[in-house]
């Protein structure tokens, strides 16, 4: 849909009939965290311009995930045993190690398509559908976008709306909020599948400043209602003196979330090369605040080769209900999650991308990046033995992508 919109903005306003053209981009990506999650993704993205400004796009993704994912439970000085989410069997964690649930395996297919129709010389309408499925999760969505050019196509305003309906049917069913994880048995469960609905609204503005400069501004509003708890995640209840875990409870998140994101982007020609700089501010009513800075410098070594270093920096403040652990005897909060992805973190992604255009015009891209997630390893308030444990081990991941595109 993104490629279609970009093409639509380029085609609108040109007198005459643009020729038919097809652009196909493919990529495979490998993602590997040290000792944790591994993911493989394969993507095909095809865009066809029918002529007259009509554009169709199809995007198919396959991904396979495996490995171990932190359950949210705290490390202990003793060997720990955890019941698998399905209730069948256990997994153990050595003393001093972060409990990782190693039953994390999944494959997912996602398909989305869109059609862009020109309403007039400066206006385009895009409608799209989305569907994805994995063994415990499915999502269906529809979206609509309106773009309009102003000022001799120097200014483009776009309005987008998307709606998604997701269903989760976790292994073993959904645990009741704050249900105690029982030894080789299922804790109390909620009836039926969980579902959530997402409404996304966004407003975008792009503006050509001069021959060498383009800026973009995008505001995204998102409202999510329904089941948003992660049914596989735990929060430990620890002894108020020793800090040793006494119980592990299934987490509980609110069933409503309103999110706002504001993104500003600058693209600037510097000599024969291109600078891309973006900044995103995010806030939501779960108390999460984040800032993202992404810098890429595309060094064009002639028409057939580019080398693009990249650095992304991300800072996140924790959610209001994030609790690395709960303390026995203290009042229970309404909601709590120890999922590190809702905690305070600073992430760094240095990377490099190389693009090689073959004699036949096909483009080969190679991308390698290193993704570092750091958080509060020793938070204030870590009780007893927890003060000696690493409560947020740094996550280190390698990302490698190979792409091939034709018809560009």
């Amino acid at each position, binding site marked *: 849909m993104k490629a279609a919109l970009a093409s639509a903005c380029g085609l609108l306003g040109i007198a005459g009939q643009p020729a038919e053209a097809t652009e196909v*981009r493919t990529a495979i990506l490998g993602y590997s965290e040290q000792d944790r999650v591994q993911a493989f993704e394969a993507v095909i993205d095809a865009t066809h311009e029918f002529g007259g400004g009509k554009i169709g796009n199809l995007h198919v993704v396959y991904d396979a995930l495996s490995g171990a994912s932190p359950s949210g439970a705290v490390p202990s000085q003793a060997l720990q045993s955890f019941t698998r989410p399905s209730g069948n069997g256990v997994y153990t964690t050595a003393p001093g190690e972060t409990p990782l649930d190693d039953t994390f395996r999944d494959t997912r297919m996602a398909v989305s398509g869109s059609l862009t129709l020109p309403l007039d010389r400066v206006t385009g309408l895009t409608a799209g559908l989305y569907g994805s499925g994995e063994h415990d999760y499915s999502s269906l969505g529809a979206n609509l976008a309106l773009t309009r050019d102003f000022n001799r196509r120097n200014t483009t*305003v776009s309005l987008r709306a998307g709606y998604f309906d997701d269903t989760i049917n976790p292994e073993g069913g959904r645990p009741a909020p704050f249900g105690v994880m029982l030894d080789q048995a299922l804790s109390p469960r909620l009836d039926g599948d969980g579902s959530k609905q997402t409404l996304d609204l966004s407003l975008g503005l792009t503006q050509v400043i001069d021959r060498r400069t383009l800026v973009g501004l995008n505001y995204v509003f998102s409202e999510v209602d329904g089941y948003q708890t992660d049914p596989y995640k735990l929060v430990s209840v620890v002894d108020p003196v020793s800090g040793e875990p006494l119980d592990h409870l299934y987490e509980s998140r609110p069933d409503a979330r309103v999110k706002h994101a504001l*993104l500003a982007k600058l693209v600037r020609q510097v000599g024969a090369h291109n600078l891309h700089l973006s900044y995103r501010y995010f806030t939501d009513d779960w108390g999460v605040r984040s800032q993202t800075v992404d810098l890429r410098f595309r060094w064009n070594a002639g028409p057939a080769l580019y080398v693009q270093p990249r650095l992304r920096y991300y800072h996140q403040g924790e959610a209001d209900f994030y609790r690395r652990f709960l303390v026995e005897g203290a009042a229970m909060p309404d909601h709590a999650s120890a999922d590190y992805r809702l905690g305070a973190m600073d992430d760094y992604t240095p990377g490099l991308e190389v693009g090689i255009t073959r004699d036949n015009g096909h483009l080969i891209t190679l991308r390698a990046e290193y993704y570092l997630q750091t958080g509060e390893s020793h938070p204030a308030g870590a009780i007893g033995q927890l003060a000696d444990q690493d409560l947020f081990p740094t996550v280190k991941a390698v990302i490698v992508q190979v792409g091939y595109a034709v018809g560009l």
Partner: protein
Amino acid sequence: MMKTGTMRAFLILCLILVALAGAGCSSLGVQPWERDLLSAPGMQLQPDPVVTALDDHIYFSKEASTGGLGGAGGGCGCN
């Protein structure tokens, strides 16, 4: 489903941006024959939609934030 105050704020923002686009930005920009550099692949706001989509998926699976330039959303049980 959508909270009234937020809807009102969103609509006001839409009106402001459309007004800016129509009138306030009319002195900026280039003539149609000055688009040589802007048409190059490296000058697109999203040079590669596949890279953008793959990156979005990684980051919304590993972090708590979502949304960005043209982010199409889409659910997944990624944990």
